[in-house]
């Protein structure tokens, strides 16, 4: 059965092993790309950095163990392979108490050592930030979008969380009681809540913090903080139904002044579109387009929470819509109004069979909501 020919390990074969190892290591290092917007390996804030530091220590420890154990395995397979004439079984060693005790105790000690920084980090990162320069935001998870309330600023927005740099942001996480999946609608286009049971989501922006679940019936908390301005991506990380993959978000970190400017803009009522413009027509349609009203589900006033759908106040100032799916531009908005469910499966908003003109008008109106 099989070849019993002894295989001596020639030098060239050892060189091949070494080359292979170097290539693999090189590829792996090359794999660590830079500038990835959703990478936990590129922390941009103190909390993510604390996690990354801990993970790095553990990684190198694990790497050492890996090299030692796999190295031992490779050594054994080479050193003890059966030579050509070996027929007699070797000495039958049944065990070695001292060795076995050593290799039980050493891993236990290593792990005990790891326990200290781990437990310390758990408590530090779970602690509420001290009173003072803290921004409070309530995050409400819906299927499949994010609602953000700023209680102190009386702002409600969706899917794009704007925060100031170098400021701990204390998130209160809740899961919403709104229709899940595809709801029914009355004659007037008002939604009839179908399955009112909210589901679990998870808030995650890897460059800024670890993740935290949004559990129905409870309010969980998570603190995020960024030391850099810029845009940081994230998405829902607890399977929450058909469009779980499409429940994306961004955190936009502004300077302190930039943030205050954003707050003022958000607190201002929506601009009136020019009279007799296409946008003005769109504003009218927004209130009543015949077989329904956008206002039934979407608010456009600053402090109005989305009843069913996201608050659209200042929609045009958002980089994306549809929970991070589509760039906010004319073409995408029109496609959405035409058939939302073709663009995002399972979404509550139905196709209202709007005419092309209606769609163009409403889109123009939406684009005025800066």
């Amino acid at each position, binding site marked *: 059965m099989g070849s019993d020919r002894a295989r001596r390990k020639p030098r060239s074969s050892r060189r091949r092993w070494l080359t292979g190892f170097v290539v693999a290591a090189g590829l792996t290092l090359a794999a660590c790309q830079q500038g990835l917007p959703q990478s936990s390996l590129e922390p941009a804030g103190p909390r993510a950095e604390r996690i990354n530091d801990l993970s790095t220590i553990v990684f190198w420890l694990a790497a050492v163990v890996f090299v030692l154990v796999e190295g031992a395995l490779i050594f054994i*397979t080479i050193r*003890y392979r059966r030579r050509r004439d070996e027929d007699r079984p070797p000495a*039958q060693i049944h065990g070695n108490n001292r060795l076995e005790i050593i290799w039980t105790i050493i891993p236990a000690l290593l792990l005990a050592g790891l326990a200290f920084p781990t437990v310390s980090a758990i408590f530090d990162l779970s602690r509420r930030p001290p009173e003072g320069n803290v921004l409070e935001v309530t995050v409400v998870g819906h299927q499949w979008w994010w609602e953000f309330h700023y209680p102190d600023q009386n702002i409600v927005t969706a899917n794009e969380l704007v925060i100031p740099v170098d400021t701990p942001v204390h998130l209160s996480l809740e899961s919403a009681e709104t229709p899940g999946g595809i709801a029914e609608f009355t004659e007037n286009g008002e939604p009839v809540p179908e399955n009112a049971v*909210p589901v679990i989501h998870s808030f995650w922006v890897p460059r800024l913090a670890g993740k935290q679940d949004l559990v129905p019936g409870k309010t969980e908390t998570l603190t995020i903080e960024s030391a850099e301005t810029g845009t940081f991506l994230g998405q829902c990380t607890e399977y929450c139904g058909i469009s779980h993959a499409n429940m994306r978000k961004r955190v936009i970190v502004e300077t302190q002044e930039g943030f205050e400017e954003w707050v003022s803009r958000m607190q201002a009522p929506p601009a009136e579109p020019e009279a007799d413009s296409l946008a003005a027509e769109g504003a009218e349609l927004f209130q009543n387009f015949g077989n329904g009203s956008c206002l039934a589900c979407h608010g456009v006033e600053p402090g109005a929470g989305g009843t069913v759908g996201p608050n659209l106040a200042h929609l045009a100032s958002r980089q994306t819509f549809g929970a991070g799916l589509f760039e906010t531009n004319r073409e995408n908005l029109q496609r959405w109004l035409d058939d939302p469910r073709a663009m995002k499966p399972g979404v509550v908003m139905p196709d209202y069979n709007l005419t092309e003109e209606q769609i163009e008008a409403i889109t123009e109106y939406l684009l005025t909501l800066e």
Partner: protein
Amino acid sequence: MAIAQPLPRTSVFRRPTATRGFASWLTTVDHKRIGILYGVTSFAFFLLGGIEALLLRWQLATPDGQLLDADSYNQLFTMHGLTMIFLVVMPLSAAFFNYLTPLMIGARDVAFPRLNAFSYWIFLLGGLFLYSSWFLGGAPDGGWFGYAPLSSQMPGVNMDFYAVGLQIVGVASLVSAVNFIVTIFNERAPGMSLMRMPVFVWMTLVVSFLLLFALPVIAIALFQLAGDRILGTNFFDASAGGDPVLWQHMFWIFGHPEVYILILPAMGIVSEILPTFSRKPLFGYPAVVFAGAAIGFMGWGVWAHHMFTSGLGPVANAAFALSTMFIAVPTGIKIFNWLGTMWGGVLRFTTPMLFAIGFVAMFVIGGLSGVTHSIVPSDWQQHDTYYIVAHFHYVLFGGSIFGLFGGAYYWFPKFSGRTYDERLGKLHFWLMLIGFNLTFAPMHLLGLEGMPRRIYTYGEGLGFDVWNMVATVGAFTIAASVLVFMVNVVRSLARGAKTSADPWDGRTLEWTIPSPPPHYNFAEIPTVRARDDFWHRKYTEDESGRVTPVVAGAATTEEDVEHEDEEHHDIHMPDPSYWPLVAAAGLPFIGYGIIFDWVWAVPGALLLLVGLFGWSLEPVAEEGH
């Protein structure tokens, strides 16, 4: 044994007697045949689960993939997980438990042969029931872990099939667990003390206890889920006072022991293969046994490490971090003992040996990534990302599946009487090793770079593209290696060279009897004088472990068997029976009744009750047998 004389009627139907032909497979109570049934059926599900995986990988090979829509993807990833865990790894382990346990302890069959058949039929019918969902409204689409309250309110029958289907296959494993506990305690040959049993038998025992205690918990969780979905109970409805996290607790109190149920059998197999092909005994047998039991025991104390982001609070998180870290200690013991077994040995790199070594190499990686999960803040980044997917595939595929393939090759000569093709075996191994690592190694990076789990597509510009493509190439490489395996099996069964009782110079009792074994296994129940009893019949050892062969210690030959066959009037084997199949057949009908219309439950209940009733009245073996 050929077709026997017809038996007198003792019940409404005649007792089946055939030992050959298709019908004999339906009524068999022979543990070896049941083992083969389990093996073939779970391999078929492996192919189905593999195809599901290939579809997933094709969809994810590029951003915004168009092969699958969200709904199809969600059904596929759910079924892939359910299939691989409940319809592949668990029953494949059961195949080995079934075939080998009696042989390794010197018994003629398990304690409850008909119960054994019952387990198998429930597994087969339960698996078919689960798969019938594709045709009857949609396959489960809530993930294999079915987190409430999503799972309790997803529309359609998909998750009804989840709740009921899993319940059915769970019964198979529970019943099996009772059988193996009693078998291992009670049916051992004289002299086979617990500390002389092969490690594989020990792992069977530990796994059986884990099943015994873990399955009831998920049974209750599934009843509660079914209750919420079908009856309108409020177990997971927060607005009524329910707690969604209760599902997670109950699921993972089952789920964590479950992962040890998935890995310990393969560890047992590796503990048999390594000594044989190192020609040395297992290093530190008591420690390996103890470590296995410790893992089983400690496994009950770590479940909430699946819930570090569920809001349990820092105290609970810290406690579970610590318990999880420490379960690495007994795991490490096993790995070091395996290395110690090979150290100083004379290593023969047959296909089973390659898979066993591959197991050790891959499991080290999976084990290390597991330790990184126990570092709670790190897990806050890793949880629900592809980093986790990488971890559990390294331990379940690089671990369990590699170990199970190793076992398949190792005992192939025993159960078939033939030799497999060694070159094809090696090709399978290397292709699978390379494909496996190509598929799952990049996933560590994908997870850390921000790719969540359970998403049917991902956007451009996130940096996920290249590694997803590599993973997909790897997946198809795995598929190719599986094809090589199938070709090898078919050809070898048809034309492989006949083999002897002991082709590997083995150490344990199954190698003392012919290949394939006769119906009754042992002509004479052996008296066991030592651990690795067979080895000690073949070789003597001095104090320093030096070995000399003993001339008369070889295994039973074919000629011995022919004589024995005619004279086995002292051996009473259990007779075949159709009651296990009848009773098992009731369960899917009851399942359809729960999901669709209670009318269906009536024939189901009848089949079950009549089956159990007939079974209880039927003797194990008829008079004169």
